[in-house]
């Protein structure tokens, strides 16, 4: 039987080896979480929770009737074993029964996020999917050059809602219109049909995850042109002064100090 000293040495050695292995492993895992541009199936919960919950079973991929979903294999440059879209190749066809989300065992795809009201088959609404947001590169989009092209607009399953064509004057010719496509984030599901349809060599309209494609304005601005937005002023805290260490002093003292 080992004595206590030997036991402690062995235990320490075990912990040391485990720490070495654990740190290498930890470094690897840290790198695995940084894939910001991956496009998840409809109903996906936010990316951090998705990565935790997804068991990499591929049932969503198998359920996709258009074989649009891909399960990331090592070397794909996506989190391994998780589902993603490549819109230029195979966009989401927005099935009404959303088979990918409905089959997900651990709930990484949550049908509640793509349902009207209570989660359930009757209430499924694929239009609520937010796979991503289509973004247009106006410098390479030929419609913005003044050439007539409405491929993305025609391909959009939410035509006239998610993509509209807004005519503006073509200053170059002075007598034509530019019929430029415009994406509206309140309707765009990020299905990617536009990216697939785009005629330029590399798509000039493409889907990015919303957290990357969208900015966020601060809520301190009141949009006076929007009915009711002014009401937010009533809820605003009364004390809105910025407090810094200097706030305690009076302005006159401050301006009259010699070391200004």
């Amino acid at each position, binding site marked *: 039987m080992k004595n206590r000293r030997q036991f402690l040495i062995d235990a320490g050695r075990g912990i040391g080896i485990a720490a070495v292995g654990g740190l290498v492993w930890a470094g690897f895992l840290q790198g695995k979480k940084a894939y910001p541009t991956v496009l998840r199936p409809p109903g996906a919960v936010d990316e951090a929770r998705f*990565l*935790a*919950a997804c*068991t990499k079973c591929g049932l969503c991929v198998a359920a996709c009737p258009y074989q649009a979903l891909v399960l990331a294999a090592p070397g794909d440059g996506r989190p391994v074993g998780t589902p993603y879209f490549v819109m230029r190749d195979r966009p989401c066809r927005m099935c009404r029964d959303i088979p990918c989300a409905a089959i997900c065992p*651990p709930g990484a795809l949550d049908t509640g996020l793509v349902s009207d009201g209570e989660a359930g088959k009757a209430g499924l609404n694929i239009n609520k999917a937010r796979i991503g947001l289509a973004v247009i590169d106006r410098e390479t989009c030929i419609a913005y050059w003044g050439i007539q092209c409405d491929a993305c607009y025609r391909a959009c399953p939410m035509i006239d809602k998610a993509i509209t064509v807004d005519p503006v004057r073509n200053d170059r010719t002075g007598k034509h219109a530019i019929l430029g496509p415009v994406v509206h984030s309140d309707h765009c599901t990020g299905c990617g049909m536009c990216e697939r349809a785009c005629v330029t060599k590399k798509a000039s309209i493409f889907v990015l995850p919303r957290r990357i494609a969208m900015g966020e304005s601060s809520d301190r601005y009141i949009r006076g042109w929007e009915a009711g937005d002014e009401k937010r002023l009533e809820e605003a805290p009364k004390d809105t002064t910025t407090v810094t260490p200097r706030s305690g002093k009076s302005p006159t003292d401050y301006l009259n100090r010699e070391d200004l």
Partner: protein
Amino acid sequence: MPGISEIRYRILRRLVQVGVLSLFVAGNAWGWKVLQGNLSSSLLFGTVPLADPFALLQVSATGTMTAAKALLGAGIVLFFFAALAGRAFCGWICPVNIVTDLADTASSAVGGGSRPLRMSRNARYWVLGLSLILSAWFGIAAFEWISPVGALHRGVVFGMGMGWTAVAAVFLFDVFVVKNGFCGHLCPLGAFYSLAGRWSLVRVVHSKEQCTNCMRCIESCPEPQVLPMVGKRDGAVLSGECTNCGRCIEVCPDGAMRFGLRTQVSVKDPKEVAL
């Protein structure tokens, strides 16, 4: 060449392992409803959920709530192995077993030879602990991201990509670094089933009367530490580390090993119950 009866369980295990994987492939490629998904979680006959209980344990270590469907699936699988089959997942289902058995055969074919590294078989329990700690730390199921088991079964069903490198690494590790290195020393999934399967009903049972002490069972066992009773006393193999692969049974020329139930032989030596 071994006679067919000397590899009868090996053949049967291959059929089960390849059969299960084939059903998954058919489920993905042609929509067969027998088994869909993969070994991480799946649907049996389109309705019964099945899930890897160790993967779900890691997911819960991240603090993520899992839907009831997956929990039920993990419960069914856990119950099957814990109550009935023991660590049989490793010997009968896991596709990496095909690779490591091949590695074992390959290294014996060239005379075995000494390998440079000795490693404790308890390392796997450390890896098991680490997977849970790292899952909690990073908020992602830690082992599922590096698992050669996942790389292989996902690869076969959904496309291998660079996953073959992990599988090749396991093979080479077993051949050149540690005998039974991956399955017997490192894999936390095996460690999980070793712990979960300790009290299962189906066991290999040894009878001393027929035993001639030829030791072929111990030589061919991938976890030889589970066979302390051979030639010494009657008894069931009670260690959870036994994969119920049946290797000892098929190589025994004397019929001293067989599959039985743990209740058939009373436990005489309490030390045997220990891991």
